[in-house]
């Protein structure tokens, strides 16, 4: 017999000691006079021996009552060894969409169902469906029908998968089971990706076996739409928005495919594509929405590949307002800074407004090229302090030096002006991160003719340095906002960067980086949490079904979803995680045996955390019944007497 809560037992025994002492020592001290002793003497003397014995019996009954009540609270139980299953199995199903490959999905599913059919009461099973997070069947059971139903309900999956968390949880669940043989069976397709976070140096619990079941034919022939995104913001109705679409062949087989892009169930674009093995193609198409309202597009790649769910791609467009950029100062000759944001009347990425207190207040981004008046300067400082961003382009003047000194930046003009170039650029900084994969002219070719010596304060970050060792581009965090400093006036007298191919992307990237912080994303991968308010109604564009989302809301299927609030409507697109489309298999010599612990299994007794009354036969009611009988006997025998 074991106790679920041993602490109660010891506590109660500890309490019993003073009570027993109290009962033993409880004797009357006050003298009561009474005349009729002649009747008491014979009665008391006759009963003395018997009463003495009775008193001890009463005391014993009281102690026994205490102990029984304590035992009832301690919850003793007898592990029901007769019902201990022979084995306990956790079946883990890799529900990433690579498992939906036509070449082995049915084979794996049949194999899993066969395993499930082998379960019975003495060999119970638990199923874990591994997706973004693992879904578990309610409990270990030998009911193969309910297990099979659970598995079928969750197939096929569209998300990615990670094994480590699922394996550890399966291990913990098995530890609670009293079975003699414990085993985890993982159904997966030998893809390398889900194993990326498994810590092989941390084995499973002792006695837990691990088996990985894979299809006979691994790998798949797959093509996918890897990306589809608009290249310009959705600002005006009827204005054509250019989308870029990337499709890729992940196999060693050639594919003929048809790309169809639909909006509101109407095909708006289609093109036949021929993809060579491992080839990636980028396409562009334009589409002009008639209304300035949220809308969604979906692309479909019709091809005879093994995995179909990554042949779809969804994109959402929500009306946007062009960011406002307050800019002052003039440039000598062409104003390339202005041109970077407004290349033409139609193709502009920002609304440029001149400096005024009101414009500065409303601007999304501020570019300072000339020192503003005091009121404007104070307004800029306030905006930056409250979380706004501003760009300062260096132009030598005492007022500029004073202005920078105000932010703790010491600036001075070098006595000898030499031609300098970028010496170092921090490509890990978010501002330059996207330039790592872009093959446009090198930043290091750009020449700068007139550069200052800037001494930045400690809380600043130098993003780029000139070849003379002084900061070229720096960012200073000033209270809640940021101040970008470029140590050049960016006109033709000070640099040739403005005519370099990297200038326009850099300036636009700087604007995007500054204004994107407060923007909510409308593109999600399956498994990501979508932030919704309490009164949001969600409509699945494909099916038309409307529902109130659970918190946290994570869409189960890829698609476009319309989020409706009282005052707001927004389209979001949810796509399959594209990294699963790649066909990267585990090496042939990959073994999971290192996950199996070499220590012997020890059947540990249940403790407070793992105790479940279902594990054994409890004696709670029996002990309570005994306690009641003992208390009743004590009452009858003692009849309120305590001695």
């Amino acid at each position, binding site marked *: 017999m074991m106790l679920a809560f041993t602490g109660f037992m010891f506590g109660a025994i500890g309490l019993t000691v003073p009570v027993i002492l109290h009962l033993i020592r*409880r*004797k*009357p*001290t*006050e*003298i*009561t*006079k*009474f*005349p*009729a*002793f*002649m*009747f*008491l*003497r*014979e*009665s*008391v003397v*006759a*009963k003395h021996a018997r*009463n003495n014995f*009775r008193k001890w019996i009463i005391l014993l009954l009281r102690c026994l009552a205490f102990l029984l009540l304590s035992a009832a609270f301690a919850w003793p139980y007898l592990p029901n060894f007769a019902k201990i299953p022979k084995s306990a199995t956790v079946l883990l199903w890799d529900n990433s969409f690579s498992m939906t490959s036509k070449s082995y999905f049915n084979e794996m599913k049949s194999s899993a169902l066969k395993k499930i059919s082998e379960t019975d009461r003495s060999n119970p099973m638990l199923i874990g469906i591994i997706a973004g997070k693992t879904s578990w069947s309610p409990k270990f059971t030998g009911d193969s029908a309910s297990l099979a139903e659970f598995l079928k309900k969750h197939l096929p999956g569209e998300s990615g998968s990670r094994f480590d968390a699922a394996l550890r949880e399966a291990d913990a669940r098995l530890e609670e089971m009293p079975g003699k043989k414990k085993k985890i069976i993982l159904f997966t397709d030998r893809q390398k990706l889900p194993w990326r976070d498994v810590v092989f140096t941390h084995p499973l619990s002792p006695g837990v076996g691990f088996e990985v079941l894979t299809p006979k034919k691994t790998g798949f022939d797959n093509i996918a739409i890897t990306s589809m995104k608009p290249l310009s913001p959705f600002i005006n109705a009827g204005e054509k928005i250019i989308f870029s679409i990337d499709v890729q062949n992940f196999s060693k087989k050639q594919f003929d495919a048809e790309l169809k892009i639909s909006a509101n169930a109407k095909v708006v674009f289609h093109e036949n594509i021929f993809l060579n093995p491992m080839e990636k193609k980028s396409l562009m198409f334009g589409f002009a929405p008639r209304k300035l309202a949220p809308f969604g597009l979906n692309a479909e790649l019709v091809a005879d590949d093994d995995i179909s769910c990554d042949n779809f791609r969804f994109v959402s467009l929500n009306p946007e307002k062009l960011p406002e950029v307050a800019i002052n100062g003039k440039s000598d000759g062409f104003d390339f800074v202005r041109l970077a944001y407004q290349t033409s009347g139609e193709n502009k990425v920002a609304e440029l407004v001149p400096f005024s207190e009101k414009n500065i207040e409303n601007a999304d981004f501020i570019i300072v090229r000339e020192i503003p008046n005091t009121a404007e300067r104070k307004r800029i400082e306030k905006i930056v302090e409250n979380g706004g961003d501003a760009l300062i382009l260096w132009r030598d003047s005492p007022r500029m030096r004073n202005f920078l000194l105000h932010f703790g930046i010491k600036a001075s003009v070098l006595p000898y002006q030499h031609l300098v170039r970028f010496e170092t650029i921090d490509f890990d900084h978010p501002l330059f991160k996207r330039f790592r994969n872009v093959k446009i002219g090198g930043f290091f070719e750009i020449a700068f003719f007139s550069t200052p010596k800037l001494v930045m304060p400690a809380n600043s970050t130098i993003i780029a340095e000139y070849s003379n060792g002084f900061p070229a581009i720096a960012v200073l965090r000033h209270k809640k906002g940021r101040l970008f400093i470029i140590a050049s006036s960016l006109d033709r007298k000070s640099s040739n960067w403005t005519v370099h191919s990297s200038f326009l992307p850099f300036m636009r990237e700087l604007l995007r980086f500054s204004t994107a912080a407060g923007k909510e994303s409308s593109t999600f991968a399956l498994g990501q949490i979508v932030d919704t308010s309490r009164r949001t109604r969600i409509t699945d564009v494909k099916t038309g079904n409307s529902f109130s989302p659970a918190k946290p809301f994570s869409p189960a299927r890829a698609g476009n979803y319309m989020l409706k609030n009282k005052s707001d409507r927004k389209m979001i697109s949810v796509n399959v995680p594209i990294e699963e489309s790649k066909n990267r298999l585990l090496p042939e010599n990959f073994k999971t045996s290192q996950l199996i612990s070499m220590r012997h299994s020890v059947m540990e007794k249940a403790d407070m955390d793992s105790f479940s009354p279902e594990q054994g036969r409890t004696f709670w009611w029996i002990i309570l019944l005994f306690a009641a009988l003992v208390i009743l006997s004590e009452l009858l025998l*003692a*009849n*309120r*007497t*305590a*001695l």
Partner: protein
Amino acid sequence: MSNINLSSEFFDTELLSRLPNLEVKARFLVAGFLAGLHKTPFRGSSVEFKEYRDYQPGDELKLIDWKAYARTDRLHVKLREEETNMTVNLLVDKSCSMDYKSRTASMTKWDYSRALVAAFLLFLHKQRDAASLGFVGRTLEELTRGGARASHYRRMMALLHRDADDSESHLANSLNSLLPAVEMRSMILVFSDFYEDPKALKAPLSHLRHLKCEVLLFHILDPMEISFDFDEPLLLQELESEDKMRLSPDLVRDDYNESIRRHIDDISSLCVARDCEYLLLDTTVSPIHALGKYISKRRFMQ
């Protein structure tokens, strides 16, 4: 006293205990007793005229002097000198055990007995019966000579002003001591808690009955002595011997109740066997009806 009407206050022992002295208690009891009667308890057995008095409701019609009524137009009752040579001996137990009062009682057994004896003395004095008083201790003490005079009555009342102080009492010895002094056809009233073996009383009662004496035993007990209704464990001390005993009431209550019931039965049976009167008096109950017991016995003797 004639203004006192029959009411429940005469049966209130709490009120009786609060009365200031024995004389008042005695008058209270006698008044209560008389108020409860519907006719005059005694009539004169002699033919010798004593005096007239006004008719009072309850007087027998045959006692009205119709001739006097014709003369005066008022109802008068003829009173006659009663002839009797009967002496009433009152024996009161003055052992320490009588000085006991439980929490439910309003007076000790001793006070209760004295009030009752005083009432008897007053009543007898009013009826001009000769009375004598003695105290039961180890032997019979301070037995007064029988008499019906007022001075005699006052002396006996004065004797009652004492405490129960004897460590023990022997009723049988006391009754035996009474035998030489007792007159034939007299009455003996014993007031005691009778903590004595009833067998010891057999012989003296037989002797008294042989002398044609009427014996009335008033068994005075506290309610706690009858029920033993204690709750908590006790350290008891005997009043007479001061012996101590620790006990649990619940454990001995049944046996005690059985013993005291048997003891009461024994005394009662003894009285029946010896043709004596027995009355168990609880100190929470008014002793008025003890007087009634006496009256009925007195009538029987007439």
